[in-house]
Every structure is written in C-alpha cells, then in structure tokens.
C-alpha cells in the first residue's frame, strides 16, 4: 500500500512540467529505463543469467525430487483403486517372506465389512520355470482373477475366475522362457538339494503378457490363480498368502475401515496408503532432506548472484541515478526500479533454468530409477503444479529481495556530492 501510494505521489510530482512546459520523460512509467539496463552489459548480464539458470535448474530438480517419489508411489499404490494393504505383523507387503495363514477365512471376514467393496488375497514366492534342460528363476504371484490390482494386461487374455491352468507372464519372463501366448510352461517349486527333485510341478498355458506394477525393470515374473501358486510354494496346507488388498467404497471411509480391520485382526499389519507413505517417507528421508538443503543453497546462490550484480551495477550508475533524483525522481521510484531489475533478471534466468532443469531432471531420474529392486513404474522427479508455482514465486521474490540492498545504496546516495564526483 505504501509503495503504491508513494508511486502515485511521485508520479504526480514527476508529472510536473519543466520550465519549457514539457513533462519529464520518466513521468509516466520510469521502470523501462531500469529494465533497459539489463541490455547494457551483455557479457556480464549473460553470465548472471547463466548462473541464475543453473541454480534455478537445481532448485527445480530439488522441488521435483522433494515429493516426487512419494507422489509417484502413491499413484502406483492407488492406481487400481485398492486403498488398504494387509500383511504379516511387523512387515510391509512383499517386504519379507513371512506369510499369513488362513487367508481365505480372513478374506471372507473382511468382505463382511459394510465399507469394503473388494478384497483380494495375494501370494508371492520364488519359482523355477523350465526351459529345455535349464531352470529359470522366476517370481510367482498368486492372484484372485476376479479382484486383481497387481498388473495391466498388455497382450492376450486375462485369467478368468476359476482358471487353474492359465498363466500370465511379464515380458522378461516370456523372453527368458521363450514362451509365446498359448504355449505350455512348466513351473516347478524350489528344489530339494538332497533329493534333487522339485516339491511340486505344474504345467500351465500362457494366457497373456502383463506388466506387473510392482516389478523392477527386467524382473521375470509370472502369475497364476492363488491356489496354483499355493500348491507350488507349499502354502496350501495352511492356506497361506503374502498379503491382502482391500478396496473401500468411499475414500473418506479408508481410515475408519483400516482402524476397524486393525482391531479385528490384531495379528496382522493393516496399512492404508497414507500409512504406507509414512513408512516409505522414513526410508527415503535422505532424498527429501538433500532436496531441501540443495534447494536452499540454490536460492542463496541466486540471491548472492543477483545482489552482487545489482550492487556493482548501481555503483556504476550512481551518476545517472543522482541525475534522475535531481530532476525529481523519488527515492521510492529508484528503489522500485532497482528491485524490479533484480526481479526481471531472476525471472528471465529462472525461465531459462526451467528449461535446463527439465532436461537435468530427466537425466537424474534415469540415474535414480536404476536402483536395484525399485518398481519400474516409480519416478523420483514428478511435477506437482502447486509446488512448482510456489518455487517460482519464491525464486522471483528472492530476486526482488536481492535488489533491496543495492536499491537502498542507490536511494541514499547524496545527490549533489555524487553529481560533483561524477563530473570530475
């Protein structure tokens, strides 16, 4: 409010006519004069813009990294609409080889909850696939074809409920087994090293090629109906499974339903997606903190760069600024002009930095997504509109603030003494 008022008042003063009756040239809007200064020293300002662009790129990368993987993980977990995961006590789903006994009984009990729309038991175990005389190590998923949340069908047909002879393969598994749709694939359970025979063998028909959502890049995985995998993994006797996923009818019912399930099944670990994100956040605390630190450093470097540049620029233009002051430009106008110049410099550098940052983010994402065991669908650098808008505003504000000190220097310079010094 003050600056506006000041600006208006100054405008009125500046609008006064000279002795010849002509208004001062800066009477309407003096800021273009300051913005034109950006073109005076192309090398210097070019370097400053390059510096701001690189630090902005770093800031952008860190903003994307700060919450990117969490958002990516959340999208992955909610991709098929199941909001609750149930696993053996003290574990996260598929994080250990621990299993849940009596999984069908638990599934039936959960399905009785009025808020629950769908329940799907899952099992996971290491298996072998036979290819000629060789055995290929695979990861096997046991699913309920009527309620699945683990894959997206890419080729062929999905498993139908009750299909105990069908098999779904990931593309790497199909390649390693040299199996095409309709081929018969032999799966065997773990071998007993003493008798050198598999505990169980099943011959299944490849029905479809799917993308398993939680697989890491190149993971050879297969999926069968839950009872088939239970047979192969030796889970059948106690009806064991690895996890249960639950879809709740309304999102606002997720937490109350999770609480009810926790109370009903104290021997199981019940996690909503929000709970899983908390666990995930704990494991990835390093990246969040790193992004915060490097993002802050980027902002500091930007402020230092702009402040240094503006200070020296203002020192160089002391004579010009004193002249403007002498012919009626108010201090507040000088301050506004210098700060605007700093903001404009930051804005232009920031725009260049955004372009550079999108390239570096892609490169850094390629590095981090090569983590072994990380689901291929996870991304570390995920754009989030609100975060980007806030970061952009903070950056421009930092540039404007960086101009405060040089603007103050410019405004407080004594007019007569400066003009006298400049004249000599």
């Amino acid at each position: 409010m003050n600056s506006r008022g000041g600006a208006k008042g100054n405008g009125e003063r500046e609008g006064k006519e000279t002795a010849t009756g002509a208004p001062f040239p800066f009477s309407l809007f003096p800021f273009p004069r300051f913005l034109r200064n950006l073109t005076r020293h192309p090398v210097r300002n070019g370097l400053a813009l390059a510096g701001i662009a690189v630090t902005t790129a770093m800031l952008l990368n860190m903003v994307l990294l700060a919450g990117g993987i969490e958002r990516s993980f959340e999208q992955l977990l909610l991709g098929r609409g199941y909001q609750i995961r149930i696993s053996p006590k003290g574990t996260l789903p598929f994080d250990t080889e621990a299993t849940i006994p009596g999984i069908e009984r638990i599934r039936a009990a959960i399905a009785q909850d009025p808020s629950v729309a769908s329940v799907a038991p899952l099992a996971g175990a290491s298996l072998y696939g036979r290819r000629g005389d060789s055995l290929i190590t695979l990861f096997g998923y046991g699913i309920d074809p009527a309620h699945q949340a683990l894959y997206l069908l890419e080729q062929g047909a999905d498993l139908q409920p009750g299909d105990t002879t069908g098999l779904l393969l990931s593309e790497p598994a199909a390649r390693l087994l040299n199996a095409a749709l309709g081929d018969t694939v032999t799966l065997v359970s773990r071998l007993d090293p003493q008798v050198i025979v598999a505990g169980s063998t099943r011959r299944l028909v490849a029905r479809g090629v799917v993308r398993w959502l939680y697989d890491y890049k190149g993971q050879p995985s297969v999926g069968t109906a839950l009872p088939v995998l239970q047979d192969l993994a030796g889970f059948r006797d106690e009806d064991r499974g690895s996890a249960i996923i639950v879809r709740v009818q309304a999102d606002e019912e997720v937490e109350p339903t999770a609480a009810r399930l926790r109370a009903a099944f104290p021997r199981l670990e019940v996690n909503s997606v929000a709970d899983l994100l908390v666990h995930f956040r704990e494991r990835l605390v390093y990246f969040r903190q790193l992004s915060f630190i490097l993002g802050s450093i980027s902002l500091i470097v930007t402020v230092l760069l702009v402040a240094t540049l503006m200070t020296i620029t203002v020192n160089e233009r002391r004579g010009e600024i004193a002249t403007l002051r002498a012919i009626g430009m108010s201090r507040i106008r000088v301050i506004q002009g210098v700060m605007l110049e700093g903001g404009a410099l930051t804005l232009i550098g920031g725009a260049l930095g955004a372009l550079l940052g999108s390239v570096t983010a892609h490169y850094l994402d390629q590095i981090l997504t090569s983590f072994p065991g990380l689901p291929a669908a996870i991304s570390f650098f995920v754009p989030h509109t609100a975060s980007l808008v806030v970061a952009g505003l903070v950056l421009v504000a930092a540039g404007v603030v960086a101009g405060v000190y040089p603007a103050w220097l410019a405004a407080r310079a004594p007019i007569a003494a400066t003009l006298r010094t400049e004249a000599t």
Partner: protein
Amino acid sequence: MIAVTLLAAFALVTGDSLPGVALERRTAAALEARVGDTLDLALEPGSLIRRVVVRAIYEPATDPSTVTRRDLAARFHLPDLGALLGATDRVDRFGIALQPGAEALATAAELNQVAFGYRAAPSALIANESSQTFRVVSRFHAAIAVISVIASAIFLLCIMLLKVEERRRDAAVMRFTGVRRRTIFGAVLLEAVLVASLGSIFGVALAVAASVATNSYYQHFFDTRLIFSLVTFGIVRFSVLLSLGLGLAAGALAAWRLVRTNPMILWGRG
C-alpha cells in the same frame, strides 16, 4: 544362517537351562531388555511360544544397506532358531572359508555342479551385487556435483568480471601512467588466485563443518555409527585444485577483457 521375522514378549521367569539369545542394541532398547531377562518368542501372534534368555547385547556391524530399514535383530544358536522355526537341519545360506590359494570363483563353479537347489557365489560377487544401490547413489551425487561445479564456475566468473569492472578506472589510471598491460593482467590474475585461495580455505572449513554436522545428525537420526560424510585428503585436494583452476580461468578471462579495452573507455570518456 537363517533370518526370520519374530515377535518377542517378556516373561517374568528365570531359567538358566533356557536357550540363549543375543539382542542387537536397538532390539534390546525397543524391548527394554537387559542381559539375563527372559523373553517369549513366537513366529507370529498366537503361535507356539519359545522362551529364551538374553545372554548378550551387541552392537551390529555398520551396514549402509540396512540403515534405513530399522529392522530389530536378534541372534540365536542355529539349532535354537531351527527348533523355533520347526525347520531343523535347514538353513538359508552357508559361509565357506577356503584354504589359502584356493580360487573362490572356481570353487563356487565346482560346488554349483555338485547338486541342484542352491547357488554358490564368491563373496566378492555378492558384495558387488549388493553395492549396486550405493553405486547409483554415487552416480547421483556425481551428477549433482557437476551441476554445482558449473553453477560455481559461472558464479566465480561473474564475480571476477564484476570485480574487474569495478577497477576500470584504476586500470585506466595505471594505463595512463605507463603501467604495462602485462603487469595489469598479472595483478588481476594474482587477485583472482588470492580470492580463489581464500574461498577454497573457507570452503574446506565449511565442508568439514557440514560433514561433522551431517554425521552427527544422521547418526542420531538412524541410531547408527555409520559414517555418512567423509572429507578425505583426496577430495580436499581435488576441490581446492578445481577451485583454483576455475578462479585462475575466470581471472584470466576478466583480466584479458580489461587490458584489451581502450583506457579512455575504461575512464568513461571513450
């Protein structure tokens, strides 16, 4: 060796004849257990309980691959854990020490041909596979470092250029009074090296302080003695040389621009 998930609870009984267990320090802290305490262990809630006595509390070897998992660990004698699991005479893996001179790779290949159902691998191979995560982190750090160095180089060049610009009138006076261009160039370069040297010293001090703070924070955060940040002589040497090199290059460029400009222009009258 066998690794499983267990549930533990206290039992208010004593028994010297009970099997012993060694608890990792964090496990003991979480259970508020001390040496001599008795624990009831079960594979899962409601399953058969085994009673054991805490014989020792140990500090685990620092392992970066498990530091974020915060698992609570306990060590058993192999037969005790086998009995608890109901899987006697079964193990997850063997560790084999070879005779001096024996080739690990060849021995592993030989063992793999003896029987099915297991995979023998040299420790170096396993270490190589398990360190993939840290290689990815190192690559990420290297990429971030490259961006930081580029930003620093531009910043340094900009500062040097601005500093030299400030000296335009001094340089003009020197040129008017007959000082040679080479002398002015050398003076600016010397100043650049001094600035870079002081900056390097300050930077190294800052890095050491940041390293101490990082280790202190993360060791407390993860409750571990793992070293997270290490400032080595090699890193310091590389950083200082890079900083001096960048300072020298920036100073040379700025000085070159200064000495090739007409003194009248430097004086502001050109």
